[in-house]
Every structure is written in structure tokens, then in C-alpha cells.
């Protein structure tokens, strides 16, 4: 089997760089659309919306130094780019001298852990359901799941999250309301902590999983139907292979490919939706951090988070793109 062609890798890397660059530039431009010195402008905004900043003098100086705000705009831009991509995003406005990067990196593991697990479960289970729905051998009652999962698809994750919290926490009191873990349990690599984490993660994860599952199921069902009409399916039947084998090796194996591509495209919206889910559950991840930053008009944190999100999503897509040829042998060759 051949390796990845250079052209393919370069193209993907190029997209990655382009995306991150474009996103970062947008974030750079927006504050500067407002007249005046950006930092002072920020502080001014915060004052207007009622935020309270101490040490504003030192902060402004620190910013000026790092970002060369007295220099012409293109130099500012370059220094900004350089700082951002090396993950030096400055200080938080409301929690000075806390550094933006440090705050974000503390919250990252919570978000990553939950998001990755939930997305993976939704993808696997959703596609499995979709494939089974398209198979003639599936019994009637299971087929009834389709309309049900379809309904869930149209509900945004965070709304489902609200409903879940209300039902399972408020009414039934089975699962905790909010937070990443029980405040009484101190973080550490022990069983108690792990259980606590899991208990707190179930509802937010469910919100994401139930919603995304329907989407994958619907898509997979469609793909299986399309695949079913292909010539190689007919030949597989003609060979008298067992239905399960035809379904799996000839059907699913081919139908899943566009789904994986779709996963890449959907990552952006999954990340976005997840932010709000965290907010609902006060889950200590990046999303909740963003919410708090918005509340306190902490623009540097907001910008920092947005950069990390753009970077993270683009990186995930890059990884996905580079591993895709492993499942689709046709892509190893110079095809776009």
C-alpha cells in the first residue's frame, strides 16, 4: 500500500494554516474596528458594563509592552500573530494577573475529555443505528427508533441539556446539577474522584450524544441506501455471501466513508454547541470559562478562548484528514 502523497499532506496542512490564520486575523480585526486604543477601549467597555478593574495602570503598561501598541498597525499585527500562535495570549482583564493561557489550559482537559468521549459515542452508536435501520434484516420495533432519533436531531444540545437537568437532577435527583465534580471530593487519581467525575459528566454527555446520534443515524441510513444500489453489492449477493458479511464488509465499510468526512465538517458546530452545554451545567471547561468572560467583559479571555477553539477544531480536522486515507484506500493517490 502506498503512503500518503506529498501533495495531499501539503494541501491539508495548507488548509490548516489558512484556517487558523484567517480566524486569528478576524479576531485581531474586530476590536480594532472600534475607534481608539484597543486596550483602553477594552477597559472602557468594561467600565461601562460595570466591571471592576484594579491595577488598570499596570495592566495597560504590560499590554503596551507586549503588544507594541504604540507601533504601527502592521507591526502590531505581526507581533499579535506571533504571540498567539506561540500561545502567549496575554493577561485576563478581570482576573489580572492571571494569564489567559493558563486559565484556558486549566479548563481544557474537562472540555476535551467530555467532548471527545461524547462525540465518539454519538458517532459510533448513531452510525450503527443508521446502518441497522437500512438493513432489511432489522426487526420492526427497532425501526421505530428512527422517527424518535430524528426528533432529537432537531433539538439543540443545550436545550436537551436543560430538559435533562430538570428531569434527572431537579425532579428525580439522581444525578448532580452542575460542576465537574463534587466540591467535597478533592481532585486526584483515586476512585472517589473518578466516580464523581463520571456522575457529573453523564448528563452533559447525554445531551450531546442524544442530539448528534440522530444526525449520524439519518446520514448513515441514507448512505447505506445509496450503497445498496451499487454494482458490487449485487455481485456480493450473487456470490451467496452471508447477509451479515455483505452488510458489514460491503455495505457499512463503504457507507461510513462520507460519514467520516462529514464528521470533520461537523466538528466546528459540535464544538460550538458544546460551549453552551457547558454553560448549562456549569461544567468547568472552556465553554463555562467563556460564559464567565462574557459576563465580566473580559475581552482578552474571550479572544484567547476563541483562538484556542479555532486552533483545536482545525487541528482535529487536520488529524482526521490525514488518517482518512487509512480507511479509504482510494485517497492515497493524487486525488483531491
Amino acid at each position: 500500500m502506498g503512503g500518503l502523497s506529498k501533495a495531499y499532506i501539503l494541501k491539508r496542512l495548507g488548509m490548516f494554516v489558512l484556517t487558523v490564520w484567517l480566524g486569528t486575523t478576524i479576531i485581531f480585526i474586530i476590536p480594532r474596528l472600534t475607534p481608539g486604543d484597543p486596550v483602553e477601549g477594552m477597559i472602557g467597555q468594561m467600565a461601562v458594563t460595570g466591571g471592576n478593574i484594579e491595577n488598570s495602570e499596570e495592566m495597560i503598561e504590560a499590554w503596551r509592552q507586549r503588544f507594541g501598541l504604540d507601533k504601527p498597525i502592521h507591526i502590531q499585527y505581526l507581533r499579535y500573530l506571533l504571540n498567539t500562535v506561540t500561545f502567549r495570549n496575554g493577561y485576563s482583564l478581570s482576573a489580572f494577573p492571571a494569564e489567559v493561557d493558563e486559565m484556558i489550559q486549566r479548563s481544557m482537559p474537562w472540555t476535551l475529555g467530555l467532548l471527545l468521549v461524547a462525540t465518539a459515542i454519538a458517532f459510533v452508536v448513531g452510525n450503527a443505528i443508521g446502518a441497522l435501520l437500512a438493513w432489511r434484516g432489522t426487526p420492526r420495533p427497532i425501526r421505530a427508533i428512527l422517527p424518535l432519533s430524528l426528533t432529537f436531531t432537531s433539538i439543540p444540545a443545550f436545550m436537551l441539556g436543560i430538559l435533562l437537568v430538570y428531569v434527572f437532577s431537579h425532579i428525580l435527583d439522581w444525578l448532580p446539577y452542575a460542576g465537574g465534580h463534587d466540591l467535597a471530593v478533592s481532585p486526584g487519581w483515586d476512585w472517589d474522584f473518578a466516580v464523581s467525575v463520571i456522575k457529573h459528566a453523564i448528563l452533559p454527555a447525554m445531551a450531546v450524544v442524544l442530539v448528534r446520534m440522530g444526525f449520524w443515524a439519518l446520514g448513515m441510513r441514507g448512505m447505506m441506501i445509496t450503497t445498496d444500489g451499487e454494482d458490487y453489492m449485487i455481485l456480493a449477493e450473487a456470490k451467496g455471501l452471508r447477509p451479515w458479511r455483505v452488510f458489514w464488509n460491503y455495505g457499512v465499510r463503504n457507507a461510513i466513508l462520507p460519514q467520516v468526512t462529514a464528521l470533520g465538517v461537523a466538528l466546528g458546530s459540535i464544538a460550538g454547541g458544546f460551549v453552551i452545554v457547558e454553560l448549562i451545567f456549569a461544567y468547568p471547561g472552556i465553554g463555562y470559562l467563556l460564559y464567565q468572560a462574557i459576563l465580566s467583559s473580559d475581552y482578552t479571555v474571550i479572544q484567547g478562548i476563541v483562538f484556542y477553539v479555532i486552533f483545536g477544531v482545525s487541528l482535529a480536522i487536520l488529524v482526521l484528514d490525514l488518517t482518512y486515507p487509512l480507511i479509504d484506500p482510494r485517497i492515497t493517490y493524487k486525488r483531491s
Partner: protein
Amino acid sequence: MSDTHDVLPVNQPETREVALEVKDLRVHYETPQGDVIAVNGISFEVYQGELIGLVGESGCGKTTTAMAILRLIQAPGRIVGGQTIIGGEIDLLSLNSQELRDVRWKEVALIPQGAMNSLNPVMRVHKQIADAINRHEGKQSKKASEERILKLFNMVGLPSRIYNMYPHELSGGMKQRVCIAMAIALNPTLIIADEPTSALDVIVQRIVAQTLLDIKERLGASMILIGHDIGLMAQLVDRIAVMYAGSIVEIAPVRTALTDPLHPYTQLLIESIPSIKERKPLKITEGLTHDLRNPPPGCVFQLRCPQVTEACREVVPPLQELKPDHQVACHLYDGQAILQPVSLSGSYLES
């Protein structure tokens, strides 16, 4: 090339074994305006070790016939009646799905029309052949499997280096030969080749055609070759069956069909074959095919036949044997049928 055409025993149907016997096969396609009759009660035999060609224009029902034998007809089509008896024992149309799956490929195999799309794009080629072998003969040891598949490749003229390749890495001709290798893997009683050379260029066509001949000779396989290129058929098949609008109009040894076609439709077909040797005026067949949902009573060819008579418009001419091994369905030859006791096909008449 062997002269098997002249060596076939004449007039001794009892000595030849029958690989496939089709009796009164009917296939309909459902449409909102009524059923389209795709195959209209055809009957024929394929003898052991022979290559019979099934020709006709597009839409005449030849591919549908092949699919019906394999029971691969999909909605909105359905098999409405008839029997397809393999090896003198098994009626494919009477099997349930489990039995059918067991019998498929072992008894009857398919060389599909578009090999381009008939191979699973995400599976290596050897695996796709091993699939069939393992299914019907149980899981083979890796070594045995490899040996066997390489031998199959050898038989169809494929290099062994393609063993681990994916379909998209092969050329059209190679893909087609992989399909042939796959079809002969279990040494089936009958192989159906559905226009195996249609999508290929002439040079590769030759190679594939030669491969099919080799297969026939080396394995003694019985084959139905479907196509519309009579010129190509002439070089490959022993007998030729001509189909029109869902019915068989003539079956004859290929030499005879070319030099002495009896049915008006066959005559028109032969005449339309371009010849390198002479310049022929283009003869266009008059008239249109009838509406397949509502065929007129009588012969299927009546609307386009240059020699149509009144009888043709009322009564369906049955397929009768006029000369040894030469059957025609045409009123022009009423009264000329050979008196024969009822033979294997049972479609003989006494007049």
C-alpha cells in the same frame, strides 16, 4: 481454436447433458401504469460444456433473463413464473433464501457487466475472491488460499503482483479478469457472462474474449454469454439464441445462424453487421417496438417484420425445432417442424 462447432453430436439430444434448463420463465416489472413484461415465458437449454450466446437489442430482456436465473431481480421487477433447473436437479426458483445462498456461486456464477464498479473498492482483490471460497468451502488456510487464488490468476492471465492490490489500482481489463477468476473459483456448473467486454477497448476485448475461451476449454465450463455484438459472439460461442421483446425467436449453432438465419429478425440482425469486405447499404428496420405493457396478440415481432402474415397477428408462434439443434419461432415455417418425440425441452410440436 478448436472446432467444437462441428463436433457437437447432431440429432442426439439424449447424449448431451444439460447444465441449465429454463422453462417458461416470466419476469414482470411493476409500473404505475401496469406491468411491463420483460421476459415473456422463454424456454431453452444450455448443454454441458457449451458456450451459448444470448443476443438482442437493448431492452429485449437478455440481462433480465440472466438476473432471473441468478435470482437477482430487484424491485420493481419480479419473477412471475417458470423454472430454472441447474444440473438437472435443482430448480433455483424454488429454493428458499438460505438454500439459494448456499447454491449461489457454487452452481451458477456471474461475470458482471461493469467490472469497474463490481469490485468492492475498499477490499483487496484477493480477499474478494477468498470471500467466495471461504463462504462455500469453509475457511481455508492462508497458504492454501493464496496458492489457489494465484493459480486462478494464472489461468486468466493476471500477474501475481496484483494479489494485494485494491480494485482502483487495476486497469479495466484486469478488473474484468479478476471477475472472471472469481467466477471460476468454485468451478460452477454454469457461468453467466453479462456483456463482459462492453466497457472495454478492442484490444482488451480480445484478451478478455480469449480468456473466456480458455476457461471454457480448460474447465469445460458451461456459459451463457450475453451481448449485442454478434460479430464478437461469432468467434466465441457454440450456439446463439436471439431474443426480441422478451421472447426467444431463434436458437441455432452460430455458424448456421450467420450463414442461414431463419427468423426475419435474425436475418435483419445479421444483415446489419458491418463487413470489412463489402460495402452494404444501411438497412433500417421499419416500425417501432410495441408497448411492452400491452403486447399485441400474436407474434412479438409483427410490427416490424417485413414478412408478416395474418396468422402472425393472431397466434403466437411457438419455438419449434426445424433442423437439428435449430429452433425458430415463426409462422413462416409452420408445418416444417421435425417430428420428434418430446425431448428435454418439451417445446416440440407435432404438426
